[in-house]
């Protein structure tokens, strides 16, 4: 079982690769819309990547209103 720190770190790694940003430039508290300059659709794409990576299904309502990596990781953690 992963810890929340591990989950958060994997979320950051995956976002870094998916959006091709400089490794180490994303932090848990970052607002991913703002930091990555993405829209809600691109955020949904990231969500699908995360689901595949963690092998979970995350209903859309679970991530409604979530905009930072830490909260996103918490929502994922609760379903692991």
């Amino acid at each position, binding site marked *: 079982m992963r810890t929340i720190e591990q989950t958060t770190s994997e979320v950051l790694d995956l976002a870094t690769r998916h959006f091709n940003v400089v490794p180490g430039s994303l932090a848990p508290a970052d607002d991913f819309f703002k930091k990555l300059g993405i829209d*809600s*659709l691109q955020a949904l*794409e990231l969500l*699908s990547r995360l689901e595949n990576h963690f092998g979970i299904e995350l209903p*859309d*309502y679970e991530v409604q209103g979530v*905009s930072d990596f830490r909260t996103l990781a918490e929502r994922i953690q609760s379903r692991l």
Partner: protein
Amino acid sequence: MLDLFKYQSIGAALRDALTTFAAEVCMIEADRDREREHLTYKDFQSRAHPLASALEEAGFVEGDRASIIMTNQSKWLISAYAVFFSGGVLVPLDYKLTPAEHWQLLKHSEAKVLVTEYPIWRQLASASERASVENVKLVLVTEAPANADLVGAQCWEDFRGAAEPTFVPRERKDVACIVYSSGTGGRPKGCMMTHENYLEQCVALTSLYPFWPGVRYLSILPTNHAIDFMVGFFGPLTCGACVVHLRTLRPEFVREAFPKYKITYVSLVPLVLKNLQKGLQARFDELPAGKRKVFNFLVNVNKAFTKSQPRLGLSRKLLGQVHAGFGGELRAIIVGGAFTEPQTLQFFYDLGIPVANGYGLTEAGTAITVNDLHPFRADTVGKPLPGMEVKIMNPADDGVGEVWVHGKTVMAGYLNDPEQTAEVFSDGWLKTGDLGRFDATGHLMLSGRKKNMIVTEEGKNIYPEDIETVFESLPVKEFCVFAANYVWPKRSMVGEQLILALHLENGQTYTDALRNEVIVRNNRLLNYKRLHGVVLLDEDFPRTASLKIKRNILAERLAQLERSSAILPL
């Protein structure tokens, strides 16, 4: 299609539709690869009537208001039908609002009943604002886990009456829905839409974009939105068509839904349409040079043959692979909620996929103008719908003036707000606050906004006053939020931004700490509501006797500053 001219209410029309089209497929609800529901019109009736019966047993009577806060799904439509059947007034709310905003609008609308989904209710029930809302007497929650504590709510699935419900007739002039065009944080604008508004709009729209049994509409735009309410609920159901809901709106599942369900129509906001365009363009760019050449040739042939009108059969043959990706049965993409850039519209039309763009606002029903595709004009928002009168007030030399609208689809007014109602009406004409002109062929061309608001590409209307609460107690003398294009008028419908006008205390400077404070508060707003920058003004804001900021005068003062240097980006 039912002859809607002979009906007095939405409820009566839908009631007859359920028996007229009893054996047709009414709704399909999918969640990823699983199909959750596959209902005929008869099935729909057998789900909805016990709900209506239970509502009536619970004391829900003619004119009572019931709100729905749900994602797009079959129970949304079933619940709405039950409300109309029982003579109620529907208050459809955007499920994406915050719990505080939901409670505010529930209070303002005086809703007696709330129908919502379990995850939404979990948040609503624990919000502190719930305590101040006494009008909501009955809460029905869908899909609650077994043994879940519903904190005062009842399980939607168990809320069923045994007796046959009594149909409650309503008149055309009665209010059918209260639809909020804004009103979170500021002054709610609850548009009172009548039964006539919907009946007339449905006839006008389906004359251009018809539905019939076998048509499948993919419902993605939130059903509380005027467009999906019409083309994803009332329109298809009164024509015997089928509505397809997806519980997971990830791009890959949406893409799969087109071929899987052989979709006929879909409504999208401009942002999603642009995203689709980007995806398709990337795939075209990847084609090997030879294939690319052939493809471009076929697109050009299609363009030549569809210049005066769409030819779906021909386009599907010429560009079969593209159309197969959309299921091969797509007749049009309806785009709305915000302004769509002409080049995006043209991109799809050139592929033989007509995009039904138009222009509308909640206050005027679903649409005021729609592109009738004869011929397709990407540079306009189409012609007025049948029955809709549109005029340009006080046009300047270039013909541009404010768009005013009159017709049977225009709202009755704002709920409990005669002052705001009086502001937007003049002799029965609705003043839209948008600027535009007609071209020689009667097509409307929009060119900007006169009012202090913006519309995002995702179709969200943002009124600056609605987001000011986030900045309350900011350590400055005074502040005010504006749409930048309202302060510095710009002939543009895209790239709109919000700005925060700040008047600092005597001797105070705009430090990094203050900027950071603004950023922190800005980040509390949903991403599409966030400010773009700050404008400093070193003078007292003009105010009324009751100390309210005179926004129009303040905007004039700000306008004296040079836009590009005045806005300090956040």
